[in-house]
């Protein structure tokens, strides 16, 4: 299988705190990898290191065979290849739905307005937001915003889509609409790396699940292995806790 992203011995320090230590894993083309783990375990930091929103302290990140930490590597071009969907949506407040999805296409990929709008409409249809192209972000619900954010990322036609807890900021009744879009994308063969607390989603959609605890990957395997036969005590403990919490909700 072709590795799109490979992370080798990655470490990240914030001041005197080691937040990530010796992280090794990779994402293959067409694969859906879910990262789970308790709050503060460094999942977001890992994702942000991968698209260089944070600068890793040590180790290597290999993208399609090239090291992205190399000084000569073009960070901006690299980021267009990785779409990012944030927990807080982060739609551009000064742009409406359509231009949220076209601005980077035009200004970064130098696509014409026509081409950018055609591409944007295509993906806005995919997420079911093509009726709302004139709306400003402040006029949309959380679920709608997140679907637009997904369309915005897809409009750049990236190789991989990174999701950082895309449903954690949503009201419960809106979680489903976003997860459904993500499931459809997964089935379409898009490569996805998803940080999530939605165990149902991970179990159903992931090809591989990575469990993180206190800055290290302690266990990795198929959803089957992680959810039904976790080897590590820490994984078991985490799953017990999160499943209990979701029952009491």
């Amino acid at each position, binding site marked *: 299988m*072709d590795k799109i992203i490979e992370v080798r011995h990655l470490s990240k320090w914030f001041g005197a705190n080691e937040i990530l230590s010796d992280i090794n894993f990779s994402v293959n*083309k*067409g694969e859906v990898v879910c990262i789970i783990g308790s709050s503060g375990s460094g999942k977001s930091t890992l994702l942000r290191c991968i*698209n260089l*929103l944070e*600068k890793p302290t040590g180790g290597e990140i290999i993208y399609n065979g090239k090291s992205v930490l190399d000084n000569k590597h073009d960070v*901006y*071009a690299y*980021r*267009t290849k*990785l*779409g*990012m969907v*944030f927990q*807080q*949506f*982060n*739609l*551009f*407040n*000064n*742009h*409406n739905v359509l231009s949220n999805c076209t*601005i*980077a296409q035009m*200004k*970064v*990929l130098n696509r014409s307005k026509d081409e950018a709008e055609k591409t944007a409409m*295509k*993906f806005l*249809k*995919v997420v*079911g937001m*093509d*009726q*709302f*192209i*004139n*709306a*400003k972000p402040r*006029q949309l619900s959380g679920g709608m915003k997140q679907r637009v*954010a997904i369309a*915005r*990322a*897809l409009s*750049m*036609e990236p190789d991989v889509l990174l999701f950082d807890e895309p449903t954690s900021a949503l009201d419960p009744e809106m979680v489903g609409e976003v997860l459904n879009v993500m499931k*459809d*994308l997964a*089935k*379409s*063969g*898009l*490569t996805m790396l998803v940080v999530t607390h939605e165990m149902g989603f991970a179990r159903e959609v992931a090809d591989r699940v990575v469990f993180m605890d206190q800055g290290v990957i302690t266990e990795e395997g198929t959803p089957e292995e992680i959810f039904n036969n976790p080897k590590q005590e820490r994984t078991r403990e985490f799953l017990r806790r999160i499943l209990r919490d979701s029952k009491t909700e």
Partner: protein
Amino acid sequence: MFLRGAGVTLYISIIGTILGAIIGLIIGTIRTIPLSENPVKRILIKIVNIILTVYVEVFRGTPMIVQAMVIYYGSLMLFNINMDKMFAGIFIVSINTGAYTSEIVRGGIISIDRGQFEAAHALGMNHVKTMLYVVLPQVVRNILPAMGNEFVINIKDSSVLNVISVSELFFQTSSITGNVFRFFEPFLIACIVYLIMTLTVTRILRFIEKKMDGPENFNVIPGNQMQVTRPEDIAKKTGQTGY
């Protein structure tokens, strides 16, 4: 003569405020550039920042009336440049407004949610593109009330330019008093003219703010029913199959 004076006052404050806003936007943007990893760039940015800080502090910390004297007579004495009075007036108002605005802009940039920057960076935008297409448009909208304030202040404070004989409203009024030997009436009229100008400007800016916010409601584009997409459709649309 009142009208001529009012015209000059408006002219100086409009141009001064606009140029000042541009200076402020540029300086505010430079002062928020993240420090680079590259040591040469890092030192360069630091030096530029120090120069800009000095500029801002000097012009905010001294009265415009004194600045006018120093700049006008200073350039005449030290460099033998006899500045056109109108040019000198606009120059002084602009750099003064620029100093104030750059702080307003800096505050405006800092107050924009970090998520806006991160989303722009994640889409491959560099600092300049992020600023131009995402951050500054929001900053401009947010600082518009403060800029309106600057404009009103400029209309009033350009009166100090009479010390270098710029023929704005206060200067014209003074000349009239010299001709008619009365003080109260001419200045009362000047007072009213100032008030009319400032009130009009405030109203116009309110209107522009409303315009920039756009309509309260949006139109749903009819026809495209919200469709349930099947994976096969997406596969076709994204072209991501066949790995």
